[in-house]
């Protein structure tokens, strides 16, 4: 199909969907089901699997039209690990049966998904993971522990990477599965964090059985599949243009306005920070324009690192502007699972809580140290660190 032809096909499908299922009077789940069946869930996926088999660049048009029509689109944030990452994995590495089984209920939010990669002993070096899966006929038996698992307590399915051959070097002996989070031998415990709440979980596997038809791609191909997942994660985290004064810097500006101190040095520092945040925002806009024009450059890779550093700095500064009020925390501390969903977090958090939460920004989704390595090596072309573990069998790699 020509690009123009593709555009017409997608536009027609959007019009038909909105005509047949008016967002104002259609229940969200029904709408999402119809959206999936119309091929508008992920337009680039094959027909019958939630797509129309067109170029992925039409995704943006679908999203834009649906937002304009006031259609429900928050399934993408509430089930981000499924729709944002799992779907891409199934599209690239799944079988037709697997796609038929999982994609539609994922999109309609009947099934929530989570991702089981990090372990207590495998953080930045996720390829060093040690959760074992051993074959037993048509099944696999899994033992081990995962950590930092968002949404595990609500999830039906998990994207799981395991070690299946400890005699191979670390990148080679891994296998990827979809695990039923309600299966026997899966224990999910909340992981309380700096704010007292638990956004994440620890997940323990004790002789958990996974049918072989839930294996994704070949035995030993786990790292390749994990890479697809992580690439989709980076697309999901970076690169969403936001309006001016969005997020923490908006809170900082409001805090200044209501503090009424008028202190000159504080104002200049606030304005300096505003400028840095605005520069980051404009860089995101520039990156998306250059991407659309087919001339992507390094500006597309700096967002995650810049955001982590700035968000920490801005939230800390905001708490300072509160004066002695900054030495309090309005919500207090209580060990409890997160009660609000991700769409609400920024609106309901106090600056103090936001300040504490922001410490994770430079750790989650790739630490800032790893991001700097990536910028240095992949964008600037600097040589890598010497690797001592690359060709060693996994079981001989020192751990601790």
């Amino acid at each position, binding site marked *: 199909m020509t690009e123009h032809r593709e555009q017409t096909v997608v536009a027609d499908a959007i019009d038909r969907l909105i005509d047949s299922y008016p967002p104002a009077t259609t229940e969200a789940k029904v709408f999402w089901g119809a959206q999936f069946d119309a091929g508008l869930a992920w337009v680039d996926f094959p027909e019958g699997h939630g797509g129309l088999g067109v170029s992925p660049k039409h995704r943006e048009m679908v999203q834009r039209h649906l937002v304009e029509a006031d259609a429900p689109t928050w399934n993408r944030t509430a089930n981000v690990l499924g729709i944002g990452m799992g779907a891409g994995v199934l599209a690239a590495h799944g079988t037709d049966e697997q796609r038929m089984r999982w994609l539609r209920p994922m999109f309609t939010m009947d099934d929530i998904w989570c991702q089981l990669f990090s372990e207590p002993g495998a953080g930045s070096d996720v390829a060093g993971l040690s959760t074992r899966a051993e074959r037993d006929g048509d099944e696999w038996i899994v033992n081990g522990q995962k950590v930092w698992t968002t949404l595990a307590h609500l999830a039906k399915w998990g994207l799981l990477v395991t070690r299946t051959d400890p005699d191979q070097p670390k990148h080679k002996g891994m296998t990827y599965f979809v695990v039923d989070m309600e299966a026997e031998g899966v224990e999910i415990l909340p992981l309380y964090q700096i704010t007292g709440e638990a956004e994440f979980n620890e997940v323990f596997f004790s002789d958990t059985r996974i049918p072989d038809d839930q294996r994704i791609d070949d035995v030993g191909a786990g790292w390749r599949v994990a890479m697809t997942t992580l690439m989709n994660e980076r697309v999901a985290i970076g690169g969403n243009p936001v309006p001016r004064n969005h997020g923490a810097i908006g809170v900082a500006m409001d805090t200044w306005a209501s503090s009424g101190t008028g202190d000159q040095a504080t104002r200049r520092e606030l304005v*300096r920070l505003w400028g840095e945040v605005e520069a980051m925002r404009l860089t995101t806009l520039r990156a998306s324009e250059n991407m659309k024009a087919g001339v992507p450059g390094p500006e597309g890779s700096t967002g995650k690192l810049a955001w982590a550093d700035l968000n920490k700095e801005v939230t800390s500064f905001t708490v300072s502007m509160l004066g002695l009020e900054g030495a309090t925390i309005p919500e207090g501390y209580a060990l409890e699972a997160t009660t609000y969903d991700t769409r609400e977090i920024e609106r309901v958090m106090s600056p103090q809580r936001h300040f504490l939460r922001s410490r994770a920004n430079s750790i989650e989704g790739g630490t800032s140290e790893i991001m700097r390595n990536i910028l240095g090596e992949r964008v600037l072309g600097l040589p890598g660190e010497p690797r001592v573990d690359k060709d060693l069998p996994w079981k001989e790699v020192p751990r601790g």
Partner: protein
Amino acid sequence: MDSSPSFTRTEEQIMLARTVRELLETHSDPDDIREMSLTLDAFDRDTWRNLAEMGVIGLHVPEVYGGAGYGFVEMAVVFEELGRRVTPVPLVSSFVASTAILAAATEEQRSSLLPSVASGDVVATLAVFEDAHGQPGDSMTTTATRRDGGWVLTGSKRFVTDAPVADLFIVAANVDGGVGLFAVSVDNEGVSVEPVPSLDGTRPLGTVTLSAAPLGTDAYLGGQPSPNAIREALDAGVVALAQEQVGGAQRCLEMSVEYAQSRYQFGRAIGSFQAIKHMCANMLVAVEHAKSVAWHAARSLDDPEEALIAVPLAKSVCSDAYLLVAGDAIQIHGGIGFTWEHDAHLYFKRAKSTSLLFGSLGAYRDRLGDALGA
């Protein structure tokens, strides 16, 4: 606001950048630049003539006044390349002065002054500052008085960019209860120029003293006070410097990466050490952010409302970015980066100097705060 012109450069702008870069790389030798930076009147006249032949000097000046009639973004492309090479040519000064003339002068004055500025035959510069901390207009002492149907100017202007090589000064003076601009030739009676050693030897500075300098009636631009023209011209200067800062910072990053790839210690390229690699990654973030705001400022100069934010934003972000990157470039180069024979100091000096010219960082942050209603 965030719309046209877009962030993505046009084919024509890419060609313009390439042409200017090739010209500078073939004609402006770093050894010569360092040599010139030892003098008080650094000016690469050959490169200036080449730029003039390309029509670059009057790129933004309307065609009726002998220019090429392009927008600020085309000018921005040129300034970025000049910042990358730090070639001593008075283009920022000329750009600022011609912006002041366009903003303040009558039709006749524009027609008489601009063609020779646009062609590069006359080097013009804006002379508005009198002390190290004052803004133009605050407690200014230079005064114009009427005499014999003309004017007499008395006072002293300091930190005038490219003053030692300029032919024409656009001077701010108290007049008619406000601040007006006067076009004063260097050859005018009562005008003397004293070069001042410049931290950035590639951009000369000087003091212009007016000792009862007699001027004709037509020297008074627009025949009335024009504080907005001064603001507009300084804003144009800040935006021009922001592009220079981007070009210089980009070059510093490239030099640092090249050096980190080729310099070996402890049996490894030093760029394989995270201490160096991470410094380079931070420099990259700073450079990319600076590029975005500098370009945004250039495309916003025609939009008065957005310029209120975009101009001081560019000053704030690009100045800090260049200072960081030029400083880190010296650090990554180690001992060699501290020597006169290496280029790093040219950029480091340019970084500090550009952060101070046309008004302090603090003053611009105050303006940004005002624009944001903070």
